[in-house]
């Protein structure tokens, strides 16, 4: 029965539920919350990068997450590639999809009003989802974990190797991301665009190239998130909607920052969701993210850590 991790996890949970060790449970939920939170953080950073470069909230962001998982599966199963080859291929194809999306949908838009941009990115997300459904069907698929599924016990809680993979890869991505934005010319140019697009173009930065670059980076981040989470949650053509929205929620908590604030936002969301599901009700788990989303937008639209702006209009 090796290779089938879900029943084993189920048994673990059942055993834990019967013991009165609340603390252990909380620890358990926090661990799994942190790893899903890391996923939300990656997706949220993707949202923020595009938003900062263009002022667009890309409703299709979640579809790149879906593409990551589904493409990896495609390369693994149909082309029989090993994992180390399938992942870069999947990321590359997702990046290509990001480029096509920006070129075919965003750039040619004649009236880029906020409403039209919302509609066009929604339309894009439906199209990508629809194409995925046609190509790969409606079934839910599992991707094998990166390195087995023997649970590891830490302080009374058990975690799977995939959890560690997720956290490690997220840390790595965030480090690379930070390096890119602060130590490369393109990264610095993108930051300049996010402060003031007009000024950036006046000093010779090719803003349109930066917009394209932001879509590439976001689709890469999204697809990576989709790949590393797929072994835990399974993947299907329609997983992008929820993951995308939760990533957006992480970005909102972080005040649309493409740095640590959004990472913290994602982790907070992941842990709250996991605790809520475990201790309160699993049915309302998905509602938690949206209640947080609304509360933040209503009360602190600048994010949990941002400073308030004083302008009224």
């Amino acid at each position: 029965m090796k290779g089938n991790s879900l029943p084993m996890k189920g048994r673990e949970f059942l055993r834990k539920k019967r013991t009165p060790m609340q603390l252990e449970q909380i620890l358990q939920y926090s661990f799994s919350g942190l790893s899903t939170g890391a996923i939300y953080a990656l997706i949220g950073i993707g949202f923020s990068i595009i938003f900062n470069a263009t002022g667009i909230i890309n409703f299709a962001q979640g579809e790149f997450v879906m593409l990551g998982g589904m493409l990896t599966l495609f390369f693994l199963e149909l082309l029989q590639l090993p994992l180390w080859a399938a992942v870069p291929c999947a990321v590359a194809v997702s990046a290509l999809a990001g480029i096509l999306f920006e070129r075919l949908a965003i750039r040619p838009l004649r009236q880029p009003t906020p409403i039209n941009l919302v509609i066009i990115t929604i339309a894009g997300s439906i199209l990508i989802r629809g194409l995925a459904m046609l190509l790969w069907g409606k079934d839910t698929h599992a991707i094998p974990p990166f390195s087995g599924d023997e649970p590891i016990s830490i302080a009374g809680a058990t975690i799977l190797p995939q959890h560690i993979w997720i956290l490690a890869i997220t840390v790595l991505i965030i480090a690379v991301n930070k390096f890119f934005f602060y130590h490369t010319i393109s990264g610095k140019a993108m930051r300049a665009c996010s402060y003031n697009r007009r000024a950036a173009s006046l000093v010779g930065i090719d803003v349109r190239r930066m917009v394209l670059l932001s879509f590439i980076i976001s689709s890469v981040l999204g697809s990576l998130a989709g790949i590393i989470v797929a072994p835990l949650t399974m993947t299907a053509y329609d997983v992008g909607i929820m993951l995308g929205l939760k990533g957006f929620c992480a970005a909102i908590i972080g005040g649309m920052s493409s740095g640590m604030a959004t990472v913290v936002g994602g982790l907070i969301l992941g842990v709250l969701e996991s605790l809520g599901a475990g201790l309160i009700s699993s049915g309302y788990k998905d509602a938690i993210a949206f209640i947080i989303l609304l509360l933040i937008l209503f009360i602190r639209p600048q994010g949990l850590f941002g400073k308030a702006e004083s302008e009224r209009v």
Partner: protein
Amino acid sequence: MLEVSGITRIFGGVTALDDVSFTIGQGSVTGVIGPNGAGKTTLFNIITGIYNRTSGSVKLGGKDITGLPPERLARLGMVRTFQNIELFGAMTVLENVMVGLHTKSSSGLLACSLMMPWSIAEERRIREAAMHWLEFTGITGLADDTAGNLSFGKGRLLEIARALAVEPRIILMDEPAAGLNSQETLGLAQLIGKIRGMGITVVLVEHDMELVMDVCDRIVVLNLGKKLAEGTPREIQENAEVIAAYLGDG
């Protein structure tokens, strides 16, 4: 009529306005001038409720209006125009002015939707009044044109017609001559004269000195967020500090 006292506005550490005070008399035409970055538009935005002030107060006809939102100010008789013209671009010229009559009408959502007789009668009244203001500003012929397609000069006239439809006691114009040719500017000067003739107080921020000296009774000069001088056009023209500020600005 309009009493501005001690208005200060700090934007993230930069003092855009520093303790600016002046008083404007009923029925007068006052110009607010100053080099670029003097804080004129910021001052306008604070008076008309678009920005918050950091400290200070504004009174209109003795009533404290500090910090009131623009929609409240409209009902109290204060209206403004914008430097870059803010028209309702997708609507016709006539409809633009009809929106100006919003405060002069009262049919609610349900009365309008159910076509109550009084709301139909009111609609007719609104249309007639709007036509009057188009005539007043001389753009009757454009009534059915789409506002977004107007030339800058005509757009400016429409903006003024729309503002007058509110039947204000005081109208603030932010650089009304910007983007106008010399003939249009002449027409504007005449229009301002006509508006003042109706007893409406006029305040304008303006760069066109000829226009300011021509139409204004009094002038307030701002420089670097502070009030530099105040007086009649002649006094201002002879004020050494004002001349220095303008020359220093290049």
